[in-house]
Structure formats: C-alpha cells, structure tokens
C-alpha cells in the first residue's frame, strides 16, 4: 500500500478536520445542554450582587401591653463615593450639601462630611451616611433639586426609640452594628414564614439585655434586592426585590411602673445615703445597688433595677470612647454592669432563711428550741468570739424570734452544730444558690457557697488568693449568717425568697413572657407565637413545721419589734402584710452592704421584692426603705385592682 498516495492523504486530512469539528460539537452540547444548568447558576452568581435592607426590629411591650421599645424612622442623607468620583465640581457639591443641611435645621460642617467620606466601609456598594435625623425640609430640597446633587441620596431607616427613657435599660439592652467575628459565628433565626433572617456586614444586632438574648425573634427579615452588576461590579439593574419584614414583637413580665418606681427609689436612696456615716462611723459611699421584683408564682421578672444605669439611646447613635469611659465610673461604679444579675455579695442575715431551713428540716431544732443570746458566741479553744451586730443582747431566743430580731448568736450556734456536715450548703443549693438562675439575660453570675472540700480545692488551685485551705468551725459559724464563705447575686436572693413564698418551688426567672407576631396587636390571641412557660429548676421541701416558724419569724421583721420596723413605719401592713429579712453584710474597710429580701402579701404572695445596696449601711435603713417604696406602689396596685388583668391572664 502506497502510504504517500494523495487520495489517502486527502482522506486522512478530511478525517482530522472532521474529528476536530465533532469534538467542537460534542463540547458545545456538553456546555450548553448537559452542564448548562450548573454553569448558568455560577454565571448568575457572577453577575448579581445581593443588597440587603435592614428590617425594623420587633417592638417590646411590658406586662401590661405598653410599648417600651419602639422604632422610629430616621432620615439619613448619604453619598455614593463611586458616583462622587464622576462629579466634576466635587468640593462645590459638598459645600452646597453642607449649606442645605445647615440652613434646613441639620447643621453640619464641610470637614465633617469629608471625614465621613474618608472612613472605611464594609460594603463598597453602599452609600456613606453623611447625616442622620435630618429634617423633612432637607429631603424636600434634595428631591426637588436632585440634579444639583449628583451622588447624594437619602433614605428612611428605622432606629430604636425608648418611650420610658432609661427605664429598664439593663433589661432591654441596646443594639449596634455586628462585628466581623460575630457575623461569622452568629446563626440566623427564621421569621414566622420560615425565611432566614440573614446577616450582612452592616447588620444591626442586639448587643445586651433582651435585645441580645431574643435576637433571633426581634431581628426582622432583611429586604433582599438582587442587583445585576457588570464585570466592574457596577449596578446596572434590579433582578428581584423582596421587601424587608419587621421582627417578632415580644412582651415582658416587666411592669414598667414597678420598674420605674424601683429605679427611682434606688437612685433616690443612694443619693440620700451617699456621704453620710453608718453606725460605726464609716462613711457610706453608696455608689450602686439593685432591686429585683419577681413573681413568686412563676418566676416572672417584674422589675430589675440597677444603679447607676445608662441610656441605651447613647448606644443607638454610636457611643464615643470618652463617654464609654465615663459610664464605667459613676461615683466609682460602672453603669454598664447589671448588678441585679452579675453583682456578687455576701448575703448576710438574709441567708438565715437557708440556715433555718437546714436546721428545722433536719430536726436539729423545732420552732420552740431556744438558747440564751448574750450577744456573744464563743467557738473553740482558745475561744474565738462571734458577736451580734452592735453587740446587742437578745436574751432567750428561739428560731422565730432569732429571725425577727436578727440574733446572730442563735445562728452561730446552729452553724456550730452543723459543722462537719454540708446541711447548710445542701439547703442553699436547694434554694438555687451556688449556680446561675438561668435568667434570659446575658452575663449572669453564679456566686458560690463553699464546702470544706471546695475550700480545700480552691486553696490548692490558688494558694496565694486563698492562703488557708482548712475548714474551721468558724467557717461554718460564718456561713450560718451568710458571711465569708458565701457569695450570691441579688437575683439569687430574690429567687430563694420566691421559692419560700410559693411553698418551695424554685423557678428559673424569666424576663420575657410572650413572643408575638410582627406588628402584633396585643388584644388578638392569635398574634401570640409562643409563651415562655415557667421552668421549675428545683424544689425546697418545706413542710408546715419547717415553713411555719420561719414564716412567723420573717413576718415579725417588718413589725414593731422587727429589724425593719423603721423602714415600714407608717406602711399599712394590715392591708398588705410584708414578710422579709434584713441583711447587713460586712465588707472590710467599707460601709456595709445593705440587703433586704421580702415578699407580700403574706398570704398568697404575688411579689418578691429584694434590694442590695453597696456600702450603704444597715439592712433596713437603705435597702429596706427602697423595698418599702416599691411595696407602696404594689399595695396600691393590688388594692385598686390595677394589674389584675395581667395576673389573670398569666394564671
């Protein structure tokens, strides 16, 4: 066979060319028919960008349906930097804009505009906000003369409003722009229609309080605009638009009237005490304090006051570093800490509830077991002396009277007798001390109630901070009166007294009551998406022979012979009997921590009210006074029937 024959060679050439064309057809079929759907998705992703519009967050109502966090529209003027680059007389434009803003009630300097324009932004497609909360006149002018203001745009954004000002700011928290780390870690929730509430670099999220814990509910569903862009990422048109949708509303157990009263009473009392001297001559700094009002029937948080407090509005507009530092030091205390849930204090005599429960339920004493209180209790050899506050002698005391008059000696004796056991610690744990309450607010503290083993372990772990690892009888004696080896939060005190008040059920405190539809109407039951049910975290066994003597003892506290008699002088206890316990915790070199824990009315209790005030002195004179002021409002509510609708539906 002649391999050089032109005919053969022509055929070979033909076959090669044919082969090439067949390869092209095959590839074309593959790309345009077989792989097209997958490749087309990539192509669409390439030429579209998603622009998200933040939706209004859900509103927040108090227990009686009053709006305590709302939204309002803020008019914002922005400049698109990419468009600005194309403007010929750039400086003239900026001067003109400053002029329009200034002459229409929104004064601004040219330098301020330039500063804003030079700031870095997360999303280059988004225009730079130049001025917020401008007047309608500015908008009118800008839209009327829009040709004179190329690259300038305006929008209406929703921002948070607080009709009750700073009230409950620690509970409500505040919102702010998401950080890059949070953006990566945050799992978005879904709205009632199941649409994912996605986040983007400019998203606003809850940073504290309920705004943070109920972020998934409060966050609205962002509006999503699918914008077609060209290869240089310039927008050329809109492919689809889904409008933003408000977030779920929520209703709190908080009664804003009670909250405001608690805050006011606290601040007023701190101001009165500040700078005065307590009995032993120590100056009261009275820098800070807290009030907790709980519903003992379900753990609902009716008020949660802390002082000093901050204005969440300051955070809404972006806070300066200087102001932030100021807030961290108001009379020596930080306004950014919610003392009601993170403050850790020795509970002092309010802890006698626990000691008494331990002693009575373990048969160490009954209601009548008495000793002679000569003001001093001696332990060990050589004897270590523990005295009553102010060296007071109470004579013959049983548990009832010991609680009423706050006989430390009686409880030193109980502590001595229970040394070598963990009976007190066990009772404390039953009341919910030594662990977080699980309240639906961030940054709660747990406190601690040390046992012998725990003290040893602490010493071994931190030998310098805890130089002594041994457990002495003195430790148990101190524990019995809530000193030295026990630290609690105000919320834990309130929860323990709530458990005692309701007969032994320990509830997880809850600030939020209901989750409602976006833009809900409270009168429509169908608008309720879900109710946060009470959660029982434990029980304290309180048979009548245990609860009876303690209750009698606490009832006497507000009475004429009780330690809080002065605080409740003139309060109509027959109409609204208040059961409580004072506490005065010693702090080395400072004025005492003043504590008062209580509930009322005595029969069928509806409120637990506690207060803890730092460096403020004796229990009754500071915290007792504050609590009394809260009860004045509550007693009035309960007598006039105001608020019955609320408790009615809650039952």
């Amino acid at each position, binding site marked *: 066979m002649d391999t050089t024959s032109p005919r053969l060679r022509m055929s070979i050439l*033909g076959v090669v060319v*044919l082969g090439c064309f067949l390869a*092209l057809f095959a590839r074309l079929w593959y790309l345009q028919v077989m792989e097209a759907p997958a*490749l087309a998705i990539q192509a669409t992703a390439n*030429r579209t960008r998603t622009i998200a519009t933040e939706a209004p967050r859900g509103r927040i109502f108090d227990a009686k349906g009053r709006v305590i966090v709302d939204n309002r529209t803020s008019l914002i003027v922005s400049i698109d930097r990419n468009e600005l680059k194309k403007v010929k007389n750039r400086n003239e434009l900026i001067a003109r804009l400053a002029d329009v803003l200034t002459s229409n009630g929104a004064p601004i300097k040219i330098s301020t505009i330039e500063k804003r324009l030079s700031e870095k932004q997360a999303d280059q497609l988004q225009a730079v906000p130049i001025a917020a909360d401008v007047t309608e006149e500015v908008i009118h002018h800008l839209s009327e003369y829009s040709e004179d203001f190329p690259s300038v745009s305006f929008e209406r954004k929703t921002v948070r409003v607080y009709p009750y000002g700073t009230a409950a700011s620690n509970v409500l928290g505040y919102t702010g722009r998401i950080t890059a780390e949070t953006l990566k870690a945050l799992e978005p929730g879904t709205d009632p229609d199941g649409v994912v509430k996605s986040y983007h670099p400019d998203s606003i999220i809850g940073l504290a309080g309920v705004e943070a814990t109920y972020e998934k509910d409060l966050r609205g569903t962002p509006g999503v605009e699918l914008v077609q*862009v060209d290869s240089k990422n310039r927008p050329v048109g809109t492919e689809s638009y889904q409008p933003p949708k408000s977030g779920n509303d929520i209703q709190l157990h908080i009664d804003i009237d009670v909250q405001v009263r608690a805050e006011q009473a606290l601040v007023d009392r701190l101001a009165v005490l500040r700078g005065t001297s307590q009995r032993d001559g120590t100056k009261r700094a009275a820098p800070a304090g807290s009030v907790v009002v709980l519903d003992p029937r379900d753990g609902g948080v009716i008020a949660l006051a802390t002082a000093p407090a901050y204005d969440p509005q300051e955070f809404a507009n972006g806070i300066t570093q200087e102001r932030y530092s100021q807030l961290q030091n108001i009379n020596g205390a930080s306004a950014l800490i919610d003392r009601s849930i993170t403050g850790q204090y020795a509970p002092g005599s309010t802890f006698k509830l626990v000691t008494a429960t331990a002693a009575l339920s373990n048969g160490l004493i009954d209601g009548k077991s008495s000793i002679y209180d000569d003001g001093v209790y001696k332990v060990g050899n050589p004897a270590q002396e523990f005295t009553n506050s102010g060296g007071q002698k109470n004579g013959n005391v049983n548990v009832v009277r010991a609680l009423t008059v706050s006989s430390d000696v009686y409880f030193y004796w109980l502590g001595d007798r229970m040394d070598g056991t963990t009976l007190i610690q066990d009772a404390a744990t039953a009341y919910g001390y030594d662990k977080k309450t699980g309240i639906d607010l961030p940054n709660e503290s747990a406190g601690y109630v040390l046992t012998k083993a725990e003290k040893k372990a602490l010493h071994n772990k931190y030998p310098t901070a805890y130089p002594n690892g041994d457990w002495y009888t003195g430790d148990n004696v101190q524990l019995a009166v809530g000193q030295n080896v026990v630290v609690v939060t105000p919320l834990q005190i309130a929860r323990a007294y709530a458990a005692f008040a309701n007969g032994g059920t320990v509830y997880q405190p809850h600030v939020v009551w209901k989750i409602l539809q976006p833009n809900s109407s409270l009168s429509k039951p169908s608008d309720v998406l879900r109710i946060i049910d009470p959660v029982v975290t434990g029980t304290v066994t309180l048979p009548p022979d245990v609860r009876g003597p303690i209750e009698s003892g606490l009832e006497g506290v507000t009475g004429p012979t009780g330690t809080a008699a002065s605080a409740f002088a003139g309060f109509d206890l027959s109409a609204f009997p208040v059961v409580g316990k004072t506490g005065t915790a010693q702090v080395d070199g400072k004025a005492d921590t003043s504590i008062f824990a209580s509930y009322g009315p005595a029969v069928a209790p509806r409120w637990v009210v506690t207060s803890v005030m730092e460096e403020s002195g004796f229990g009754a004179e500071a915290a007792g006074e504050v609590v009394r002021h809260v009860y004045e409002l509550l007693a009035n509510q309960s007598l006039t029937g105001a608020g019955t609708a609320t408790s009615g539906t809650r039952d």
Partner: protein
Amino acid sequence: MLPQSISSRASNQSRRDPTAPLRHLDPVLIGCIVILSIVGLIAVFSATRGPGPDFSKSYLVKQSIFMLIGAGALGLFAAIDYRKLHDWAWVLYGATTFLLVLVISPFGSQSHGAQSWFALGPFQLQPAEFAKLSLIGALAFLVSEFRGDIDLRRLVALLATAGLPMALIMLQPDLGETLILVVITMAILLVGGLPTKYIVALTLVGLIGTLGALNSPVLADYQRNRLTAFVNPGDKSNKALYNIEQSQQAIANGRLTGQGLFDGPQTKLGFVPEQQTDFIFTAVAEQFGFVGSALMLLLYGLLCYRIWRIAQVAKDSFGTYICVGVLAMFGFSAFENVGMAMGIMPVTGIPLLLISAGGSSTITALAALGLVLNVHMRRFQ
C-alpha cells in the same frame, strides 16, 4: 428524466464554452461565505455596540468596510488564473517576509505585549495574517514542483521556507499565528506526499519541542499559563482560567435556544474579554444557544468540506495544495478559536475567520477563499 434534463442543460451551455470559469463557481461555498460573513457582522455588532441607548456602530462600520475590501480581494484572487501565482508566489512570499521584518522594527506598533501591527490611520495592518496566504502559495509551489517526491534535502528546503515567517512571527511574539503556519505546513506536507517516516520523525520532534518549550524559559509565564490552562482547569492561581471560566459560563448561559439577539447578559455585561475577536464565539453561543451556534459551526464545517472537495477535484496539484493550505487555515482557526472559548484548547488569540472583527484577517480569509473558488472555476481549463 432527471439525468437527461441536467445533461441537456449542460449541453446547451456547452454550446458556448463549457470550461468558462464563471460557469463553474461553487454556489454552496459562496453561500457559506455570504451567510458566515453576515453572521460575523451581527456578532461583531452585538459584541461591540455597548449597553446603549446610543449604540456604537464603529466596529460594525469598520468590519463592513473590511468585508467590502475583502470581497474585492476575493474577486481579484478568483479572477486571475491561480496558475499565474506560480510566478508570483515568491514575490508575495518575499514581500510579506519583508513586512514581517519591518513590523518588528521601530516601524511596527505594539499592543497587548506583541509588536505585530502597522498603524495606518484608523486602521491597523497585521502582516502575519498575509503571511498565511503567502506561505500557502510558496509551499504549494514548491511541493507541486517536487511532484510527490520529497527527500530529506527537499524537506529541509520546505521547512526553511515555512520556518522563516514562523520565526519572524514568534519574534513579535504571536504564538497563535505561528501555530496556524505550522498547521498549514503540516497539511501541505501531508497531502504533498511527505514519506511516512518523515511525518513520524517530524511529529516526534514537534512533541519533544513542545514539551521542551513549555519547560524552558523561552515562553513567558503568562504564555505557559495560557497554554496549560485547559489541562488543569482547577488551578486557581492561573489567571488565564478566569477568562475561560467566564467564557464557558457565557456559552452555557445560551442553553439550547439562546438568550436572543443582543440579549446575552454574560457577554453584554463585559464578563468575557475580547468578545469581538478571540472570544466572539461566546457572543454567538450565548445569544443563539446550541441551535444557533451549532448551525454556525455546521456552516463552517460545510465551508471546510467544500474546500476539501475542491482540493480533490483541482486540475493540478498546485491547486490541490493551495486548497489544502486554505482548508488547514480555516479548520484550525475554527478549532482553536472555538475550542479555546469552550476550554478544550490552549488560550492563544486566533481570530475566527469571517466572524471575528479584524481587517487583515478578514481580507486574507476572503482572498484565500477567492483562490479556492479560482481553483474550482478553472478545474476544466
């Protein structure tokens, strides 16, 4: 009866001059040329008119002018008996070689990193395009002179003839045009009766040379990346891949029936570069889909088939080799250009003849087709 009627009509015509060239035009080939040229004008317009509403017509106008000049060249190259080229082959070869030298001298202009243009007012002259045609002429002349008897000495002469313009074009550098010259040479040598042992030897030398070049500093990094992109489609560091990815997405976006004329978002928004030249196929494929672009390829295939057929019916071997050269030129131009856009061929800029915008390439392509028609017309003379 059908055969009789045809023969009777033929005998009627033969009464005048049965071998008259004008009686033996190839209507199918001419049809292909006309339709492809129109498709080309539409494609160029859609790729260059911009987002509007003031659509730019400058490319359309320019390309139309080139088409007209090209039509003139086609007429000229078809009218003069191709056998006269026998005497002119070396003149043409010499003239283009001179231009190729001139273009890499300071007289030439640079663009996209290659010195391959003469700037002539608003137009640009690319001598490498003409070199294809002159090389076809020179090789066809030599091989036909050798009458199917190519020994080593003659092979060296042939390779030297082909190698000179290749070397000059590589100096610009223009890899794509050099490759076309290689393919043209290979096709003519194949049909011209190069003994199989030499074919095997040349193939081996070519393979080793290619691998060697890819692993040597002769090629710039960007050239190597382009050449190897289609082999490693997952290599994210390879910038050439971005264009290829966009181009394939645009083609896929055409689906079966296309997005419609002037309606390809991927190409319209500028995601595919050089749409009017190297990536013109993406514009066609996105707008007209598989149906449209396959039809265009089919027309291209038909064009190649007609050239192949004319190569076989040519009266002399000179005519055959000319057709084989032109066939190689068109076939490879289509395979490389379209294959590159679809990611199965290396990235190197070669125009899709008759479709891509470009004066020199369009005029050369039409002139070459004029020669093929010439061979067909005079197959009985």
